């Protein structure tokens, strides 16, 4: 497969405040490198992630979206990540139906102690998304100007 060397994907990472955002901070503290294409948005819990946010990201040209939360059983709010997991399963199958490759979305559990896992996950995800190339843009037909 041909890989466009200059293609820089836009990757949005939603991180829960308690585990994954702290995990991302830890990756930074340990100077673990991952591509600058990843931009993190802090949310209080993975269950705060409204599927609409992901659709919006794909509408606006994101090439990949990843949700990181606490490990099952370790949610700061006890059960939030379970809700997130169920919601994302449904959303991902819908995205698949819409023609967005399954690999462009991902859910990972990253604890506050897993700086290395965070960096590895991001490296792997960006590599996957880069390999897939530019995403087709989700468009809301009602909003189309012509």
């Amino acid at each position, binding site marked *: 497969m041909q890989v466009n060397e200059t293609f820089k994907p*836009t990757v*949005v990472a939603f991180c829960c405040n*308690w*585990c994954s*955002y*702290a995990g*991302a*901070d830890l*990756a*930074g*503290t340990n*100077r*673990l*490198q*991952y591509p*600058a294409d990843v*931009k*993190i*948005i*802090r*949310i*209080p*819990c993975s*269950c*705060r*992630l*409204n*599927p*609409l*946010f992901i659709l*919006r*990201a794909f509408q*606006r*040209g*994101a090439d990949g979206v990843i949700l990181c939360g606490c490990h099952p*059983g*370790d949610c*700061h*709010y*006890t*059960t*939030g990540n379970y*809700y997130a997991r169920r*919601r994302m399963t449904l959303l991902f199958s819908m995205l698949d139906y819409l023609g967005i490759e399954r690999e462009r979305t991902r859910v990972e559990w990253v*604890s*506050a*102690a897993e700086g290395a896992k965070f*960096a590895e996950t991001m490296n792997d995800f960006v590599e996957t998304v880069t390999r897939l190339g530019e995403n087709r843009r989700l468009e809301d037909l009602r909003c189309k100007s012509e």
Partner: protein
Amino acid sequence: MQKIGVFVCWCGSNIAATVDVQAVSDALAREPGVVFSTNYQYMCSQAGQDMIQEKIRELGLTGVVVCSCSPRMHEATFRKACEKAGLNPYMVEIANIREQCSWIHKDKLSGTEKAVLLGKAAVAKVHLNTPLTAGESPVTKRALVIGGGIAGIQTALDIAEAGFPVDIVEKKPTIGGKMTQIDKTFPTLDCAACILTPKMVDAAQNENINILSYSEVEAVKGFVGNFTVTIRRKARFVDETKCTGCGLCTEKCPQKKVPNEFNLGLDTRRAIYIPFAQAVPKAAAIDPNYCTMLKTGKCGVCSKVCTVGAIDYQQKDELLEREYGAIVAATGFEPISMDKFDEFAYSQSPDVVTSLEFERLMNAAGPTGGTLLRPSDGTHPHTLVFVQCVGSRCDGGEKGKPYCSKICCMYTAKHAMLTREKYPDTEVYVFYIDVRTPGKNFDEFYRRAVEEYGVHYVKGMVGKVVPENGKLKVQASDLLGGQQLHIDADMVVLAAAVEPDKSARPLATMLTASMDTNDFFTEAHPKLRPVESPTAGVFLSGACQGPKDIPETVAQAGAAAAKVIGLLSKDRLTCNPCVARSDELMCNGCSACEKVCPYGAITYIDKEFRGPNRTTLLRRVAQVNPAVCQGCGACTVACPSGAMDLQGFSNAQIMAEVDAICK
């Protein structure tokens, strides 16, 4: 339109080395609504904070964006600074350009580009921020300490001393914990019982302390300042208030074959027992697994001999529900099981013991009355081999623990020294990987064991122990001597790794407190908040947070008590204002949000609304209790009508961030 000020921090060279801070502040200056943008060496310094405050006053800023380190580090600092200058603290947003940018990207060009984007997202968010005011909640002025070892006792005593009532919940029939089983303490060699038991008595006599022994925490509800805890008081079949602790029943009980857990099974006790002479409360308990009366209904000896009528075979478990303002976890540790380490023949020979068992064998109140005898044949051992790091410092797998258990080097030196002191005719070998003795007078202690007491310290490990003809043939490496040693030993003592008590994990789940992969409680900050759990109102004391010796445990116990006292001395607590809010006009009363709320913060009320033609109609709408809501946002996604939103992380705010990043 907001008037936004942007402040880009260099963090010395931490940010400035890989991010062109000037370019960032220049780029952000061109964002809509930004009226001021600058960069400075240390935004968090007094001078930096002064600059922000000055600009708020001078330009009448309505929003502030600080591009700096993680909000987990200094969000509170900047919010406080802005509040002092008259800006609502929730009008501040942090763009994390250190941990999530400058520290992970080496290329300055892409680092700068990303920093600009993160700054833009923060600016976009601030545009939609609204001033928030924190609510308040009352504080129940009573603390719960879970675990009655030295950590729990010290924490409780310190809290009680400050005048607040404390309950200690202890799962065993007596408080005291592991320290009661220890013979002498390093590096001073004073007797553990002599320093611990007076503290146990103090706890029992302190009118602010209520000891709930033989009890376990069953459920925890609520939040900081307002916990409701269900405690199971297990049936001890003895009325604690009547029992005088005379011990007659424990002499007359015909069931003599019960392994004595206090002596780690090295001897036996009766089915009705007082764990040890100085137990607190000094009251007997019946072991239902062994009591003939409870199992078959035939016996009743203890009831007949008890002069105060304290025996009650009908006693049932009892559930208590109590309110607390703060909870301290002090669940302590256990030595790991030696099941997976049978290369040391622990299961094959009674003369291979763990260090805690060795404590009992050396203790005057132990099974041998303080004379060191081999458990197999009761003879005096001449050659003893101590093995350190059994199960500590192992990499992964279920076999051992990845961490250093911290206390083993010192207690092994203590055991070796005491053995040589009491029995000069013995040869004592200690096999070590490293001797770790950082602590006051610790290394001196270890050196004394070598130099004055002639303990043979050998750098190396034991690879196999073979029991043969009454001896333990120890095969070991002597790395400095370059040889494989074969020692015919009489006893082998294993310094087993320590692990958190098994009750810690379910407790952490109840408390929603976080744990590391080894089941130690995680502290809120590894350096700056070492005795607090990240969950507000939950504090950590002793070895449940990590391996610790007694002085460290007591120090941490006191520190945890100080934090609890600080909390309980407040009458009201400021709540997190970033909580869910329901738009009553949009709410259709479907209950979807109520079902996903883990805190029960959402209730429904029937509210009057103005209908058409001057009618009024009652509609069922959701209401969030801001003191109970913790702000997870589960309800906001569940809400089908879009009525529920989270303040500080609203749908619009997050969408604005998404838009700023993807374009």
